[in-house]
């Protein structure tokens, strides 16, 4: 075990993936010699050469289209989009091509090897173009897998699984935690399962779900609730698509209450999907309405970032409201 921050864990995963499979290629804007604007790809070009780790021109649609072609030929491209806010020029390539490659060809062709890495989320004074959480747009697209890690250990294991998974994966990295989240990470190769949530703390009164950077928030809110003798079962969803309904269902049947927290705007956010599914499966077990603590239905602000965010206090209040319903 070595202490790593989230960026170092990602760098370690990429290093291992490239060392263990020569079909793994890393590229994107500033990814080559510079090692990426956040340094997630540091030293990879030096180690694996310019043919396997390189800069692309500044064109997101080009990056993903190119990556689709590589993957269709059998390579395992790991394409970086510098900020998730800038993924939209590639929306067509991802939604109409990546997601449907296998289906439309009757599985003659696929882009199974493709992984798209992109930093997402706020809390860094980034305003609306460096803070968005666009996972729900992609969750509406059958054929994609969507993964979001919460800490360095999770990031490394989930990224290695994403790269090796036989389906295209969008891997959203919580950039607020890049250097802030530090933890013990094995130096060795390991994988964590996709499509499986993780219960990070067992409880009995209310189930609280989040993913990525919001896990830190709900864990703090859970601790505050604990001081008021409210026992929260906290779940990291980890995979948004496909998501682990069974773990959530089992938990809600036990606690009778559910709160979902995400940073993206409330309307059309992935919490709505979870809430709808859980009320179908747990209707008679529910003791209070399923509650969403999310970003406002506005663009991500700058000066009033703190006010916008679904933070610890809003989560804590929502937990209490569910208990007192």
């Amino acid at each position, binding site marked *: 075990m070595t202490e790593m921050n989230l960026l170092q864990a990602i760098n370690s995963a990429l290093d291992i993936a490239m060392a263990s499979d020569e079909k793994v290629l890393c590229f994107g*804007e*500033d990814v*080559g*010699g*510079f090692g990426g*604007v956040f340094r997630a790809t540091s030293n990879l070009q030096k180690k694996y050469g310019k043919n396997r780790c390189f*800069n692309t*021109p*500044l*064109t*997101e*649609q*080009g990056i993903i289209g190119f990556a689709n072609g590589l993957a269709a030929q059998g390579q395992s491209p790991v394409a970086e989009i510098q900020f998730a*806010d*800038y993924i*939209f*020029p590639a929306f067509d390539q991802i939604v109409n091509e990546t997601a449907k490659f296998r289906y439309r060809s009757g599985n003659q062709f696929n882009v199974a090897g493709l992984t798209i890495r992109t930093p997402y989320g706020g809390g860094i*004074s*980034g*305003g*609306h*173009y*460096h803070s968005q959480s666009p996972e729900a747009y992609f969750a509406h697209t059958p054929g994609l897998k969507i993964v979001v890690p919460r800490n360095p250990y999770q990031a490394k294991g989930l990224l290695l699984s994403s790269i090796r998974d036989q389906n295209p994966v969008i891997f959203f990295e919580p950039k607020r935690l890049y250097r802030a989240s530090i933890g013990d990470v094995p130096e060795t190769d390991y994988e964590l399962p996709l499509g499986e949530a993780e219960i990070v703390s067992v409880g009995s009164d209310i189930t609280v779900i989040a993913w990525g950077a919001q896990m830190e928030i709900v864990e703090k809110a859970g601790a505050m609730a604990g001081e008021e003798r409210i026992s929260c079962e906290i779940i990291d969803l980890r995979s948004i698509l496909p998501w682990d309904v069974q773990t959530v269902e089992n938990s809600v049947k036990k606690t009778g209450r559910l709160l979902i927290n995400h940073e993206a705007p*409330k*309307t059309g956010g992935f919490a709505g999907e979870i809430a709808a599914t859980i009320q179908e499966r747990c209707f008679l077990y529910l003791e209070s309405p399923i509650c969403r603590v999310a970003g*406002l*239905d*506005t*663009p991500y*602000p*700058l*000066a*009033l970032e*703190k*006010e*916008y965010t679904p*933070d610890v*206090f*809003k989560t804590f*209040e929502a937990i209490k409201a569910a208990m007192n319903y």
Partner: protein
Amino acid sequence: MKKSSPKKDPVVHLPEFVTGSALSFPILKILKEDGTLYKDAVLPLIDREKALKIYDTFLFLRIFDERMLAAQRQGRISFFMTSTGEEATHVGSAAALQDDDMVMAQYREPGPLYFRGFTTANFMNQLFSNEQDLGKGRQMPVHYGSKKLNYMTISSPLATQIPQSVGYAYAQKIEGSQSCTLCFFGEGAASEGDFHAAMNMATLFEVPLIFFCRNNHYAISTPSEQQFAADGIAPRGVGYGMKTIRIDGNDVLAVMKATEEARKLAVEKNEPILIEAMTYRLGAHSTSDDPSGYRSRKEENRWKKSDPVLRMKKWLLAQEWWSEKEDQEAMDTKREEVRNEMQKAEKIPVSELSSLVTDVYDKPPWHLQEQLAELEQHIRRYPKEYPKSSWRFKND
């Protein structure tokens, strides 16, 4: 719509490939590095008053860049981008436009704003995201905009303004406005699909538009030789059927001259023009990167020799339109002004809470009104956690 004129291509019976090297671009230079003019060079329309207004903007930008970079390092603002080394591109082109011509910039072109009367306070209020910012404190620093000064608000995503500028110019044409649009972008942004879509539409729709490419050789860390294999951006203009010119972007007189001629073609003949200005980003991409990680000091020093501001100063001094004494006084005045306005802007509070939900639509719909009310109630419960907003509730 334009009909392409029938053109007879010669017929051959053995394969012949046309190469890019068949095309070469002369580079327009008027002002030498020593402040003298090239023989035979023809000046743009410039008199003492205009020259000093340009130079005044240069001095402001130099001091502004230096001070705000320091302010970012001190943690007083969250982010900053300088345009040091590239001033001639954005100030020179603004000086060749009319004030009602539209400017659609990328993010490293504050010159036209200052040149047109954006005050130091206007800049500071944006950088400090306070309630007097015209953008209401919603965007990161350097995302200025002014409806009054015909300068479209900056958007961070690259190249999005390029096709928009075609639409803007098309509207100017059909309204018979006798004005044009000038669209700035970098050589890196020209790799985006939006650039290519825009170039094609501009010539097809015959719009009064100047595409102004600042080829500053770097897109963050990526040097232009890793951005494209061809000879810069200029050949693309020709490829899309556009009159194109390459200029020395550190020569303010060449920038003015090219823009002046381009404007004539744009406004009088509805011909879009591509200008590729060769320049160099002397500073970092932004306060988030360190250029020593991707380029040499030697290369930077080479470009410092063609500093556009110094070059113009030499020209002004040589013809006695300006003196060292006036230069020093002007710099002192500007330093003082920047310092004072920064101190003022820092003390102005951020916009009130309701600014979170306004302007998302023309009027906040029910769900935003509801979310605002809930948020206000929450902040009243935890006033200490939201000091930027809660102080306003104290005297209720």
